[in-house]
């Protein structure tokens, strides 16, 4: 299983190689993490510093200083079977996308080596990832993941409409993530590149093989949650009363933003305290799936991107191969790079005003009355991001923002409850709610 540290690393690549893969979500820091990393490191980075077991391959993105050091610690102390570094650029646009496409290709090749080693074969060759067989698989998985993302995006639209609780939605998204990492994958026919077993084949007919498991879970869950809900109904996986009360009437609406949410329990706390969570701007939420990867023609070498201040077109210099693959017109690595770097920006990115614009759009479309910003303790990106968003979104939109710093397990602490309750009272006072 491949465990990835960041939403900018495409799961499509290991999945296309037949390796289960998921985004790392922890419930607590590793028991002895401070033997490997300093105490003033963010809990997410520290959580990586643990024994992952010999079945686990870890892919660390260069998200921040702390994750880069976590990468060192994992390798140096032998905490995982293999550790890969995925050098995610901090900008988008032609040069960054071309560079990242090359990085993703290298990542695929490294994993292909691992797969061959596992089988006792010789090392992988470039043909393993550049040949039409793999590239067809990859495109099929991209289509499948697009379906999955579409389902998950729909789920959070229901959250914005007040039809299901954010806690339930994020719970479903995490279950899908787990499914990607743990469910047995379909076997690929080595000759045709098509799924070999019946279940996978059915998925293939719908556009990709692993969607059979994941999409079904999401759509089924979403339907059940959003079903015929009167006031106070729905929610909680069909088990009864929604945590949020099902609809936002009479409640102050808030959006949740931040870097990594660490644990979804915070959303539950906000809803239990009496706030309606209308959006979740986190890499555990829609930032990971509010985008689609192009899977047909039209994605070639991109031009300079106006979204960046220094958006030069450095494609040629980046030395990435043509976007054309044998028998097709799409370079799937480039398509992945283009889509992932262009997705709703996380605080680590330098994409001009895109992040603030995205948050403003969420704020307006969801009609929230305040923003709760969650910063994992010692997360530098979050600290800088909060100050910028407070000025460029909070103040400009006239919205109060609450900064909550936390670690694993802190969501339900008395301190958090007190602060969230006070924030609710303040919002209700502003709204004239009794």
């Amino acid at each position, binding site marked *: 299983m491949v465990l990835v540290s960041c939403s900018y690393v495409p799961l499509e690549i290991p999945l296309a190689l037949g390796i289960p893969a998921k985004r790392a979500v922890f419930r607590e820091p590793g028991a002895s993490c401070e*033997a*490997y*990393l*300093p105490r*003033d*490191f963010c809990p997410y980075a520290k959580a990586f510093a643990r024994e992952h077991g010999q079945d686990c391959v870890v892919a660390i993105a*260069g998200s*921040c*200083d*702390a994750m*880069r*050091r*976590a*990468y*060192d*610690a994992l*390798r*140096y102390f032998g905490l995982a079977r293999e550790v890969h*570094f995925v*050098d995610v*650029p*901090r*900008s988008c646009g032609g*040069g*960054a996308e*071309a*560079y990242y496409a*090359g990085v993703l290709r290298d990542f695929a090749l490294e994993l292909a080596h691992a797969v061959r080693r596992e089988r006792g074969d010789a090392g992988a060759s470039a043909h393993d990832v550049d040949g039409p067989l793999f590239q067809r698989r990859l495109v099929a998985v991209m289509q499948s993941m697009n379906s999955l993302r579409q389902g998950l995006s729909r789920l959070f639209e229901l959250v914005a409409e007040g039809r299901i609780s954010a806690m339930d939605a994020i719970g479903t998204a995490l279950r899908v993530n787990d499914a990607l990492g743990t469910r047995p994958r379909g076997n690929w026919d080595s000759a045709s590149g098509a799924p070999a077993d019946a279940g996978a084949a059915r998925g293939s007919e719908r556009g990709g093989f692993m969607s059979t498991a994941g999409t079904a879970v999401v759509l089924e869950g979403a339907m059940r949650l959003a079903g015929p809900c009167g006031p106070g109904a729905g929610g909680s996986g069909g088990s009864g009363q929604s945590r949020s009360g099902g609809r936002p009437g009479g409640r102050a609406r808030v959006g949740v933003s931040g870097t990594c949410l660490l644990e979804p329990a915070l959303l539950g706390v906000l809803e239990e305290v009496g706030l309606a969570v209308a959006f979740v701007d986190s890499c555990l939420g829609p930032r990971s799936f509010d985008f689609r990867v192009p899977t047909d023609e039209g994605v070639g070498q991109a031009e300079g991107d106006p979204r960046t*201040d*220094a958006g*030069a077109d*450095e494609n040629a*210099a*980046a*030395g*990435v191969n043509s976007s054309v693959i044998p028998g097709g017109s799409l370079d799937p690595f480039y398509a992945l790079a283009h889509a992932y770097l262009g997705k709703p920006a996380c605080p*680590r990115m*330098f994409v001009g005003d895109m992040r603030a614009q995205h948050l403003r759009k969420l704020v307006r479309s969801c009609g929230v009355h305040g923003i709760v910003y969650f*910063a994992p*303790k*010692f997360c*530098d*990106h979050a*600290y*800088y991001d*909060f*100050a*910028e968003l*407070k*000025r460029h979104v909070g103040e400009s939109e006239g919205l109060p923002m609450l*900064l909550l*710093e936390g670690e694993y397990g802190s969501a339900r602490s008395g301190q958090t409850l007190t602060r969230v309750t006070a924030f609710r009272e303040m919002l209700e006072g502003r709204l004239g709610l009794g």
Partner: protein
Amino acid sequence: MMHFGIPSRFWQMVGQAAGGAARQTATRGARWTVVRPEVLLRWKLAYKVASAALPLLEARGAKAYQVAAIRCVLSDFADAYLGRKPCIFTSAFVPTELVYGLGGVPFLPEAAAGLAAAFGLAARSLFACEALWYSPDLCSFHRAGLGGAASGLLPRPSAVIVTSHLCDGGKRSLLHISRLAGCPFYMLDVPYIPSDRATRWLASQIEHVAGDLARRVPGLSLEGLAQALHRSNEALAEYERVSALRRNVPAPWRGSEALNYVLLFLWSWGSPSLAPFYRALRLHLERTIATGDFPVRDERHRLLWLNLRPYYDTRVFKHLEGDRASSVAFEEYSFAYWPSLDPRDPFASLAEKMMSNFGWGPIERRLEALERLVDDYSVDGVVQFAQWGCRQSNGGAAIIARELRKKGIPFLNLDGDGVDARCGTEAQAITRLGAFIELLDARRGW
């Protein structure tokens, strides 16, 4: 004022010459009264007086290299604060040859934060930063830089260039500064793993930034780029001689002072003033070795110092160098890790310089550099100043400790804060350093 000792005396003289404008308290730090520093720094007369006072300073016993360093800083500050050249703010590892070569003057807020701490101005900047909702858990070098910009202490930038090198705080704090100033912001995205593809991409980014700056900022052009690279090479050649002389046992230069000059090491590559400074320093070291007038007499131990140091007044180094007769033989941040630049191919050459930073990339690169420094400088022990909030450096402590232990070199991770005196832990630092030196003594059987 122990740190930035000569510059401090120099600025005192400037203040006195300006009509008693500045007064330094007899205790810790400095208190500026009457003329606020942000006014003094923009006062043309202050620079004239200062320039005129330089020979006087030498006559009063300042060393030639110290005067050369002041001249270097003074020239850049005058260019930046008086608007004589376009001022380009950069983070610490942007190759400053690019800025000098374009005809601008670089300004490094995080390096200036060290100066601010030495002059007792950091607290004000830190408060200004915290008032903007920035967390005190962020590195104080960046907070002070940001707060200094917000409170008007820094000059006005014409543009900002950052790199994604090493440290997250530098680029984000400078993004804020560019927004405050409403000036162009450029980020050089430095690939983590060296490869031809990576170098080409970085070179193309540098070329784009240079071209765009030349188009957008009046007064900048690409004409001087090759010359700046020549100057940088000239300074590097002198600096390598300085580094070689510092291998001498006992150490010919006080490490606590060398740590102050990291400012120039980060700031001045490509400046016409850097080679003269290193030349003067080389001559000083040669003289010291020839005469045997070493700063730490009866040197007992030689240390390698990682990361920076507290720049506010502290007794830590007095204790180390005086009471414990232990030298900081060399500093990690004084290590010139890059090869000579090729003025015929400036962008690729600068890209290679950036990519060769040993602090960037997998930790093996840093380990290799440290191992080399330990050997080259006959080091007995390694101290890492664990700057609060510096994830990139502190994050390697466990691995560095283990690797050094394999070589039989003790390692001390010394918590502290280089700029925020409120978080200073002087007594604790002295205790821990004392214990570390005792450990080194015991290993020698003393």
